[in-house]
């Protein structure tokens, strides 16, 4: 790592150290009952214990897999739908109110219905995550696509491009940035919805772990679960950002 890299890493680390110090400070300040706040080192110890004895990795895997498939399917459908809505104004006028209606519904509110229609298996969780990713992705897609300037299409036409070539060589490259943004947004929303989806009789998964722990008031386990969700979401986002940077080297970004 070069000097600038070390500095960036250090800068990124500061708020985390600060958060942990604040955590200790709150615990030791005496304002809060210490039995309600496990110390960071206790949570870390619990993490190791869960990892080695309770199969935390299985929970992590179960949750990550659900998020992965939910987001993949949601974006797979959101991309063409968002594209159509952004590209054809009539389609937008036609579908916009309905999309906003469904987008406003919190996925948790749908859980009773999902249980009725899809049961309590993996399918039900997939449906919830699909719903959350689709509606957050579709909005990003159509907002992005509707802002594509017609100039590039005109240029391509004057160079002799036919409809297929315009689509393949102009519209797709211009759409890629929006697909990546939609993916990032959907990923965030899906992780946020995970716990809700695992409310449905899940055996394993980070959401299920948190749910079970709350029944027995195991605060340290809840903390481990929450931190795991945040960390995995962070790692996925970082991977996606690396891919974005690789695919979109051409983009003019403000770097200060």
């Amino acid at each position, binding site marked *: 790592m070069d000097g600038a890299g070390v500095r960036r890493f250090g800068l990124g680390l500061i708020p985390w150290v600060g958060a942990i110090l604040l955590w200790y400070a709150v615990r030791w300040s005496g304002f809060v009952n210490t039995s309600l706040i496990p110390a960071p080192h206790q949570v870390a110890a619990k993490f190791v214990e869960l990892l080695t004895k309770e199969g935390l990795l299985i929970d992590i895997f179960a949750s990550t897999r659900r998020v992965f498939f939910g987001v993949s399917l949601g974006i797979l459908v959101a991309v063409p739908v968002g594209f159509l809505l952004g590209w054809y104004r009539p389609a937008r006028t036609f579908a916009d109110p309905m999309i906003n209606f469904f987008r406003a519904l919190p996925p948790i509110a749908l859980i009773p219905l999902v249980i009725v229609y899809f049961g309590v298996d993996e399918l039900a969780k997939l449906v919830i995550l699909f719903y959350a990713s689709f509606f957050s992705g579709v909005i990003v897609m159509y907002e992005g696509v509707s802002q594509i300037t017609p100039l590039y299409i005109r240029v391509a*036409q004057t160079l002799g491009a*036919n409809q297929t070539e315009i689509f393949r060589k102009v519209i797709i*490259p211009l759409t890629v940035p929006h697909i990546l943004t939609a993916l990032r947004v959907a990923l965030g929303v899906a992780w946020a919805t995970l716990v809700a989806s695992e409310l449905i009789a899940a055996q394993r998964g980070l959401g299920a772990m948190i749910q079970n722990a709350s029944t027995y008031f195991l605060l340290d386990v809840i903390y481990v679960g929450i931190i795991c969700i945040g960390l995995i979401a962070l790692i996925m986002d970082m991977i996606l950002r690396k891919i974005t940077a690789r695919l979109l080297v051409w983009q003019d970004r403000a770097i200060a």
Partner: protein
Amino acid sequence: MTTRAQFDKVSLAFETPKGRLNVVEDVSYDINDGDFIAVIGPSGCGKTTMMSMLAGFQKPTTGSVLFDGQPVAGPGPERGVIFQEYGVFPWLTVKQNIAFGLTLRANHVAAGERDLICDHYLGLMGLSDFANSYPKHLSGGMRQRLAIARAYAVKPQFLLMDEPFGALDAQTRSNMQNLLLKVLQTEGKTVMLITHSVEEAIYLASRIVVVTARPARIRQIIDVPFAYPRDESIQERPEFGELRSYIKHLVMDEYRAQQAQMRPVSFSE
């Protein structure tokens, strides 16, 4: 001399909520092979609309716009367009931008030939050192050179330029004008240039079409009495100065007419 493009009693009007808006009215003129036509007139008068019809983006309301004797049905590679906003593709490198047209089915360029054509125009436009750069690293003048190279690469018979140098600073602009003259000298093209600069029109064009305030009609068509190849020295000649003040008068006249059309703006709101 063959006629390449023809405006035949062309009018174009829009229906707006406030009524019919005539943009171009009864315009007729021919553009012959090898002509360099500059269209000049007050801004907002409808000269870009004229070009847009020949490019194939807009259709006349009445009359017809012909290219090689056929009514223009849409945009096509035989009519290259250089846009004021350049329109270089930001997701492609400089070389890929030039190659873009060559990879299209309509232009039938063999893969082996593409590289040669790209290298030729990279060199001609002084972009060889930037072949693999993305447009975000280019200056305005370089982007415009890239746009010209890309348009030239597909060998259009005709070039339409909409105020191509309008956004450039004075020095870059005069460089670009000289480059364009040089390229025209070696490659030969028929050109229709939209501009609001009288000097640019005289320096570059063989014929100047002065357009009236909106709706755009033809005020006068003027032959420029300088032979090609030209260099900046012609701008010092007395004929250049006379022609310039003559055309400036015409354009100022129309500019005032255009201003008078606009309703006085109230600042009390």
